[in-house]
């Protein structure tokens, strides 16, 4: 494996992890959307590079889907939704930035510790890909957990999906079936998100999910 080829893949995947960290501390809606768009863009670059290294032309399709859908269409549409819901002025109280970052570091270390020994049989590229992918997934989960705004939670979930796409492309030779399906489900999920965000805003005049807790049925 040529050193430079590996280094570029490593660079792109490492940048993806770095962007996941950046998602953690954004407290303004537009900044969050922009970082997410960048996240998806770096993902598409990474997938495209994998397509080049693995000589797998069908991965170019996945890269294109990631670029068009997740880097362009979804951020633009979410931007419109944010403007319509009039929450772009909102500054979100992100829970304890310092502890969250340290926790994020811990998660990255954990995923490296877990994935490296387990994948000792496979080639170096797949190993680093999977370790980074798991880090991105866990960081996306952390983003979802530390947020109160419904739109931010959705963005956290989408960054989690980006990590999954990274993992799927790292697993060399995985058939296109799954890739198209992942893209398809992104679309469906987005429709659902759109419907829900509007319904939540209609009913509660806010997308703060803590407001939803008042209506949690059956409080004993």
């Amino acid at each position, binding site marked *: 494996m040529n050193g430079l080829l590996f280094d570029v893949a490593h660079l792109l995947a490492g940048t993806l992890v770095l962007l996941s960290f950046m998602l953690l501390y954004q407290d303004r809606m537009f900044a969050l959307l922009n970082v997410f768009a960048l996240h998806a863009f770096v993902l598409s670059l990474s997938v495209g590079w994998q397509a080049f290294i693995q000589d797998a032309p069908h991965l170019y399709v996945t890269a294109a889907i990631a670029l068009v859908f997740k880097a362009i269409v979804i951020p633009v549409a979410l931007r419109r939704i944010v403007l319509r819901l009039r929450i772009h002025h909102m500054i979100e109280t992100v829970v304890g930035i310092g502890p969250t970052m340290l926790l994020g570091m811990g998660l990255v270390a954990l995923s490296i510790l*877990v*994935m490296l*020994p*387990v*994948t*000792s*049989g*496979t080639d170096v590229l*797949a190993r680093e890909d*999977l370790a980074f*992918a*798991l880090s991105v*997934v866990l960081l996306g*989960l952390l983003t*979802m957990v530390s947020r109160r705004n*419904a739109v931010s*939670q959705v963005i956290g*979930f989408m960054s*989690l*999906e980006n990590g*999954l796409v990274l*993992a*799927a492309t790292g*697993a*060399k*030779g*995985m*058939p296109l*079936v*799954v890739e198209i*399906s*992942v893209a*398809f*489900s992104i679309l*469906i*999920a987005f429709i*659902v998100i759109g*419907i*829900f965000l509007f*319904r*939540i805003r209609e*009913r*509660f005049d806010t997308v703060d*999910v803590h407001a*939803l*807790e008042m*209506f*949690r*049925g*059956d409080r*004993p």
Partner: protein
Amino acid sequence: MIDLGTFASDSVLAVPAAAAAVLALLPGYRVSARLNVFASLLTFAAALTLLFARPEPGLYLIVDDVNVIFIVLNTLVAFTTAMFSASYIAHELETGRLTPTFLRFYHAMYQILMFAMNLALIANNVGLMWVAVEIATLTTVLMVGIYRTPEALEAAWKYFILGSVGIALALFGTILIYLAARSVVGEGLQAMAWNVLVREAGGFDPALLNLAFVFLLLGYGTKVGLAPLHAWLPDAHAEGPTPISAVLSGLLLNVALFALLRFKMVIAANAHAVAPGPLLVSMGLASVVFAAFMLYRRRDIKRLFAYSSIEHMGIIAFAFGMGGPLANFAGLLHMTMHSLTKSAIFFSVGHIAQVKGTQKIADIRGLTESHPVLGWGLVVGVVAIVGMPPFGIFMSEFLLVTSTFARQPWLAVVLVLGLLVGLGALFLRLNGLAFGAPQGSTAPVQASHVPMFVHLGLVLIAGLYLPPPLVAWFQHVAGLLGQ
């Protein structure tokens, strides 16, 4: 001459898909409801055919010993639920809780859900199964939120978030399984096929399999509703329309558990992988005990039975965690019996909630006097679900407890404790619901009770006499499931 097996397996998928397309366009309620029932009947017939004629295992679809009974069960419950839904939704239309525009949506989603569940059951590709489970999750999320009340939206949002996270973790586990298989089988579709995976699992990397199973358990376990991943379940059951509660409890939980079973078979075929037993046992027991205690404080009737579903899923997970021929048999039997009984209970609860106009337990009393058929149906259903003889659930629970007692007495004690606590809670609530002076509206219910009777009848028959072919099938699959 078309191969009957291939035709049947294709129709099990094609009929719901086509019905969904048609139902999305039909405006009238009566016609839609009838078409819904008819399409479900056709699917059930196709599934029955699969008992006799199976297609050759392909790269995408497979009908083998493990999933053939599940597909029949799935389509049967889908059919009876469609019948229940026909009368239930008519009432919702009258009271104005559901507008006609949503009806097309509802019926189309129902058939898409059936399509997805059938696909998940007969898929031979791990990724395809994942996609099917994801589609099923998304359709149920949309349907849980269909009433658009604040509570319904909260339930649907919670379900969506938790379900999506679970699905994502399950995908990661799937990728890891593919990686494990790739080094032995090579790249491409055959590294994702169930039959190939089970056959070749002996040579997979054990560490990779262990890690994969953890992710899969977390992911699909969320969809099964095992504690502590169950948070979405009570709300989703309580806030959605009752046919959806019946389908969730009776079918979707089973499909998720089926996925876990398939993976357990793969792990079991590898001698060096850590046995998934202890994890399943602990999660199962935790679910049983937790749900049993939570049953006492419930004030909403659908939520009560939702927690009962969590308890039973815990029992099934415990059974498969214990492993061995007896416990596996008990688990499989319990899956079938629970599916039938719980949906029967939801059938009666649905009509009860409609006629009384409320889901609060405190406001529903004396059902056996005001609505004898529904009331006694509920009584029979609850008696069946808590595991009293002569119903089928008693058989499976008895088998499980005795086999566990022989191997791990302390676990059996905890299990029995949980079961008894749950029994107490349900009987306590049943007492208030069914007996005493009637409260609330006493208007008659114009609905068909056939679905409820069919299910309860089947459970009773199974409890008294389990047909030998069925026993043989259960034993065979129990053997395949390993330790």
